[in-house]
C-alpha cells in the first residue's frame, strides 16, 4: 500500500471554464502540505477534487487520477460517499449543524453512518473533542446548540466533527480566514498536534501560516502549480520568479 496522496494530471472545470490545469503532486503521509496562491488560482478547487466534493457543484467536472493511500478515488464504481468517509474536510467558515447540539454535531458522521450504541458515540465524541483541543471548554455544555459557541470554538467543533469518523486525511480549506488571530493561533497549534496522526492538506491565503504549520508547500497560480517543495526552501529560496514575486508581496 502506498501512503499519502498521489495526484496525477488533475484538471477541473466549472462548466466551460478550465480552473485547474493538469496538476501533478504527491503529498506525504502523516505530514502537513500547504497550498498557497492568490484568490481564484484553483487551490480550493484542488483540494475539493481530492475528496470528490468538486463534482457536487452543478456543471463541475474533473479528469485525472487521485490516489489516496493507494486507492484510486476516481476509479469507475467507486462510491464518493465511501471516499468522503475516509477524508475529513474543514471549510472556510465554521458550519456546525444549527439544529444539533455540540455532542450531536460531533456524533453526526458516525450516527448517520449507522452507529447506534450510545457508549461508542460518547467515546468517539470525547476522543474527537480532545483531539480538536475543545473538550475542556465544552465538556459541560455538550447539549447546548453547536452554534452557541464562539467562532473559533465552532471551527474546532467542525474539526472535531471531521475527526470523529477517524479519517486518514484531513483537508482544510482556509480554515482560519473567518477567525481572529487568537483563534487562528489555536487552530495552528492544533494542526501541529495532529501532524503525525493523519495526512493534512491545508489551503491558505496566509503565507506565514503555511510557513508555520507545513512541511511542504505548493504555490498555485491561475490553475497551474508553479512550484512545489520543502516549505522552508520554497519560502527562503524559491526556484521560480513568480513564486518569489508572490511571497515577497509583489503581487496577489
Amino acid at each position: 500500500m502506498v501512503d499519502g496522496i498521489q495526484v496525477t494530471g488533475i484538471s477541473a472545470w466549472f462548466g466551460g471554464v478550465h480552473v485547474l490545469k493538469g496538476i501533478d503532486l504527491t503529498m506525504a503521509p502523516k505530514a502537513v502540505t500547504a497550498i498557497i496562491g492568490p484568490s481564484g488560482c484553483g487551490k480550493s478547487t484542488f483540494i475539493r477534487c481530492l475528496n470528490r466534493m468538486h463534482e457536487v457543484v452543478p456543471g463541475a467536472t474533473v479528469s485525472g487520477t487521485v490516489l489516496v493511500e493507494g486507492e484510486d478515488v476516481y476509479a469507475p464504481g467507486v462510491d464518493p460517499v465511501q471516499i468522503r468517509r475516509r477524508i475529513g474536510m474543514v471549510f472556510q467558515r465554521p458550519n456546525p449543524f444549527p439544529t444539533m447540539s455540540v455532542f450531536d454535531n460531533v456524533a453526526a458522521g458516525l450516527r448517520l453512518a449507522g452507529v447506534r450504541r450510545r457508549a461508542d458515540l460518547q467515546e468517539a465524541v470525547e476522543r474527537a473533542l480532545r483531539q480538536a483541543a475543545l473538550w475542556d471548554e465544552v465538556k459541560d455544555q455538550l447539549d447546548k446548540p453547536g452554534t452557541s459557541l464562539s467562532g473559533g470554538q465552532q471551527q474546532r467543533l467542525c474539526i472535531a466533527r471531521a475527526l470523529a469518523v477517524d479519517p486518514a486525511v484531513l483537508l482544510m480549506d482556509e480554515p482560519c480566514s473567518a477567525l481572529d488571530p487568537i483563534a487562528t493561533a489555536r487552530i495552528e497549534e492544533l494542526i501541529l498536534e495532529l501532524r503525525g496522526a493523519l495526512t493534512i492538506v491545508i489551503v491558505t491565503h496566509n503565507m506565514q501560516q503555511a510557513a508555520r504549520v507545513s512541511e511542504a508547500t505548493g504555490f498555485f497560480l491561475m490553475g497551474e502549480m508553479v512550484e512545489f517543495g520543502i516549505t522552508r526552501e520554497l519560502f527562503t529560496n524559491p526556484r521560480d520568479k513568480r513564486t518569489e514575486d508572490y511571497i515577497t508581496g509583489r503581487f496577489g
Partner: protein
Amino acid sequence: MTARTRRAVNLAMGGLTALAAGLVILPLVMIFAFLLFQGASAVNVDFFTHLPKPVGEDGGGMSNAIVGSLILVGLAAGLGLPIGILGGVYLAESRDRRMPWLVRFLADVLNGVPSIVIGIFAYALVVLPMRRFSALAGAVALAVIMLPIVVRTSEELVRLVPSSLREAALALGIPEWKVILRVVLPTARAGIITGVMVAVARVAGETAPLLFTAFGNRFWHQGLDQPIAALPLQIFAYAIAPYDDWHRQAWAGALVLIGMVFIVSLAARVATRGRFSGVR
C-alpha cells in the same frame, strides 16, 4: 439636506410604514371584533355538543360540522402534505433544469385556479366514479388546493438552507438522501411548518370546492365514503336561510372556524418548536 429636514423625513417615513403595517392587521381585527359581536352570544356548550335541530326549532349546534371540518382538513393534510413537502424538496434539490421549471410553473398556475374549479375536478375524479358525495372527495379537493402552497413554500425554505451545511454533511461521507432527511429538512423545519399552517388555514375555510364533493350533512359522519358536514358549508347554508336563529348560528360558526384555525396554528408551532432554531 439639513439635519432638521432629515429628521422630519425620517419621522414621516417611519410613520407611513407604521400606518401601512397597522392597515394590514386592521381587517383581521375588525373581522374578529365583528364576529365576536354577532356570534359570541350563540357560542355555547350546545353549539359544540349538539346536532342541528330540524327546521323551525330553535337551538341545536354544529358539532357535526366541527368534527366534519376536522376530519376533512386532517384527511386533506394527510394526502397533500407528504406529496407537497417531497415535491418541494425535489424542486429545491434537483439538478435538472427543465422539469423543475415546468413543475414550478404549473404549481403557480394551479395556485391560481379558482377553488370551485378544483371542486369540479374532484367531482369528476372521485364523486362520479363512486356515484356519491363523500368526505374523501372533499378531502381530495382540499388537498389539491393545498398542494401548490406547500410545494412552493417547502421549496423556498429548503433553498434557504445554506449550501455550506449540505457540503459539511456530504464531506462527512453521508449519502445525499440522508443529508436531505437529517440535516436539510430539520434546518428548514420551522419555516416549512409556517407554510403548512398557511395551507391548512386556507383550506379550512374553503366552501366552494366542498359544495359538490363533501356536500354537507345534517347528521354525524357515517364514514369516509359518505357525505360529511363541514363548518364553511353549514355557515353558508345557515346564512342564506330565512331564520334569525340560523343567522346567529352562522355567525357563531364563523367565529368558531377562525378560532380553530388560530388554535391549530398555535398548537403546531408550540408542539414542533425545536430546541434549536434553523431557518425561519
